[in-house]
């Protein structure tokens, strides 16, 4: 029985490793300039965790096989150094593993969060609210009008709470339900939540950022491939969370300029 258990352990470990090794569920193609480091980090983590997992399962199976059904005279074996030795060994092995991943990953993190956006990045404001994402472009004057939450009225499509009557900078702001950006140009997102926690996730961009109510979050990236990608909310925000999404359209610069002009005209 014990030997059967040991065999089952090994089989399960190998079977679960096969789809990972074969990249059966590979991540979609990376279309960002910062994504390569993140993908590398993911692979390293998977490799380290995977090797540790297989090693642990095989060692467990080995011990179960070898030391099950001991005879009446068999002595109980102890881990060298006893419990103390075991704890120190675990701390060292797991600690080194986690530290290594952390140190290697710092560069990927710093690349996204600790470098400031370039001065000519395209600023776009993002408002997440139950249950849609809306985007605001500054318009020809290059300035965002002020936000007045008490003026928010979705029925008249005043999503951001702009006051064009008294605020000149707000008059040419362009509000859209779709995030269109030019390809190969850095984009600077200024993100806030209208109500509860949300999250902005685009798989292909390797971007996932939480909206924390009350915080203004800054994020920048550059998309490298034209196409239409899904933005999904990945922070449970209420009964419509399953349906909360928008589309990211990466376009050539001329297409983007046309699109923006068309949106402004409406």
């Amino acid at each position, binding site marked *: 029985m014990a030997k059967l258990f040991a065999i089952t352990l090994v089989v399960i470990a190998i079977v679960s490793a096969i789809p990972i090794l074969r990249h059966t569920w590979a991540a979609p193609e990376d279309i960002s300039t910062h994504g390569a480091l993140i993908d590398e980090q993911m692979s390293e983590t998977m490799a380290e965790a995977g090797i540790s997992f297989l090693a642990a399962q095989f060692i467990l199976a080995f011990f179960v096989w070898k030391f099950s059904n001991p005879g009446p005279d068999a002595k109980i074996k102890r881990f060298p150094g006893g419990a103390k030795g075991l704890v120190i060994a675990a701390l060292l092995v797991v600690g080194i593993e986690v530290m290594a991943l952390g140190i290697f990953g710092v560069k990927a993190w710093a690349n996204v969060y600790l470098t400031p956006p370039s001065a000519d990045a395209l600023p776009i404001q993002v408002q997440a609210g139950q249950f849609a994402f809306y985007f605001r472009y500054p318009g020809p004057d290059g300035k965002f009008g002020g936000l007045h939450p008490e003026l928010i009225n*979705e*029925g008249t499509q005043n999503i951001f709470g702009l006051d064009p009557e008294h605020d000149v900078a707000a008059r040419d702001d362009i509000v859209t*339900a779709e995030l269109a950006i030019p390809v190969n140009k850095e984009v600077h997102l200024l993100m806030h939540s209208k109500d509860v926690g949300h999250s902005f996730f685009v798989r292909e961009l390797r971007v996932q950022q939480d909206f924390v109510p009350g915080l203004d979050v800054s994020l920048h990236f550059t998309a490298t491939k034209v196409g239409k990608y899904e933005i999904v909310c990945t922070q449970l925000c209420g009964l419509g969370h399953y349906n909360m*999404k*928008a589309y990211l359209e990466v376009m050539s610069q001329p297409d983007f300029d046309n699109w923006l002009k068309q949106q402004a005209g409406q």
Partner: protein
Amino acid sequence: MRAKQLLLTVLVLLVCSSLMFAGTVSGRVTYTGTPVKAKPIDMSKEPSCAKQHATPVTTETVVTGPNNGLENVVVYISSGAPDDSQVPSQAVTFEQKGCQYIPHVLVMHTNQELKIVNDDQTSHNIHPLAKVNREWNKSQPPGTPPIVDKYEKPEFISVKCNVHPWMHGEFAVLTTNHYDVSKGGGDFKLPNLPPGKYTITAWHEDYGTQTADVTITGNETKEQNFTFKAKAY
């Protein structure tokens, strides 16, 4: 016998006369100035609704018609109507179709049955923002039976959908059955008004309320127009 017949005849004549003498108030609701341009609504986050509209729908807070007509204005008798307590037995229906509320403004009598129907392939969560009546919101997946409810107190209630932020409508809960909603060139008509003194109120969700006093003496049609000042923003 004679006295009874005489009494009966007099009674019939009196009733008939009050029925025969039923006037009408009709007119147009118009606006002055330049209203905000209707903005298109982007429904791309809900493809099943977006594809139902060949061109995007526009906001319905201010809907204008030919000759400066203003639509969706609720015109009703706010005082003087004799049969106000009668609650119609048939229900009014509010439809969710193409991720829009149809009609944009729905009028009902207090305690009249309200039926809310979901004709879309997506779930809606209707949320009438009542302040005098009880405020509630209800989820309605596709293919589920209509929501049935009623409002006990008169109120103008803004209606939104908790899932689709662009959906917006209005409930007008009145204590009268003499009402109309202006359409086309802003036309409205209030028929079947027995002789008497009436106050007519015109309500628009953004431009406010106006009243006028009208007296009906027989079966004439009295003209009463309303003009609202449009808001530029």
